[in-house]
């Protein structure tokens, strides 16, 4: 956020920066609850998962704003917004359908499920956006790096949540891993804002996993 402000990219990537501000606020809130109630308390657990769901939804909209950047010249912003809301609603309905059997603490289960599903939906959407960037020969280096780092972040989280579901007994290990992966996005975005100027271009053909 500081890098974006310094380099004059705050308003251009407003949703990305709003997400970063929200992350800082949530981290401070978590620390406060942790200090008052302790790591194993129900209050911390509730605060952690509910705030995580809010952050995931914000990140989902940050991703949508990147779509708006890529498809901006096609004046497709309205459709992008509509599509994003419909997909978010669809994910929420799917998550509800998954947890509706568990009667106890259904809301909490729903929030956790929604968060996990949104990471995977976000990953798929980032992959589609990456496909569109390659297809449309997008050359803005900063935008490309923002999308790629978001892709790495979503994949790391989606893979870790999947592993946690596969091996529930090792849940604490995977939760610790998530805290480490949390650094990926701020560092990569800071690099993109600080080191790359908004008008710097790069050849998209050089970025494909297999040369074209």
């Amino acid at each position, binding site marked *: 956020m500081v890098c974006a402000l310094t380099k004059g990219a705050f308003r251009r990537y407003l949703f990305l920066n709003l997400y970063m501000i929200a992350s800082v606020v949530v981290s401070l809130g978590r620390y406060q609850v942790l200090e008052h109630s302790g790591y194993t308390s129900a209050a911390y657990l509730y605060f952690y998962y509910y705030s995580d769901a809010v952050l995931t939804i914000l990140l989902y909209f940050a991703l949508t704003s990147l779509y708006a950047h890529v498809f901006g010249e096609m004046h497709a912003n309205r459709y992008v917004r509509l599509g994003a809301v419909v997909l978010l609603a669809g994910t929420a309905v799917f998550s509800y359908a998954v947890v509706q059997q568990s009667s106890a603490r259904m809301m909490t289960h729903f929030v956790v499920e929604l968060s996990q599903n949104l990471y995977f939906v976000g990953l798929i959407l980032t*992959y589609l956006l990456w496909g569109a960037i390659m297809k449309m020969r997008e050359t803005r280096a900063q935008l490309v790096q923002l999308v*790629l780092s978001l892709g790495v972040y979503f994949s*790391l989280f989606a*893979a870790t949540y999947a592993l946690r579901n596969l091996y529930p007994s090792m849940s604490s290990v995977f939760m610790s891993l998530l805290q480490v992966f949390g650094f990926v996005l701020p*560092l990569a975005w800071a690099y993109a804002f600080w080191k790359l100027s908004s008008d710097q271009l790069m050849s998209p053909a050089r970025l494909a996993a297999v040369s074209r």
Partner: protein
Amino acid sequence: MMAGIIFVCSVTFLLQFFVSYCRSLIAASAKQPLSREVQDVTGISDGASGDDFARVLQLLHLCPDSPEDRTRVRAIGAYFGMLNVFRSTVAKFTPALRAWTDFERAQCAYFAAVALERRIAFSRDMLAEQMDS
């Protein structure tokens, strides 16, 4: 079952994004010409080869590193390691894939040479500052 599918998809996408991210870092340095001095030190004059990477990396570690390229060099180091694994397994049986991994390894070596050039310039600047003060 569902978690397994999500895990496999996520790891596949992660690899794809990581490769592209590393390539975006390499692309920035690919057009930068090497000075005569760095060409002599690294032995890279007509074009880099993947086998140069380890040697250039050793030279790179001899120079004081600047914080700005430390993370990038590490990422490319990880990418080079991944390419080596790929080269000695899957690419062994497919000539096209082998050619691609060789090209990528050479690009990594060139990236390291460009980083070396930057570090030499960084060291010179530091030395000049010390002498001035």
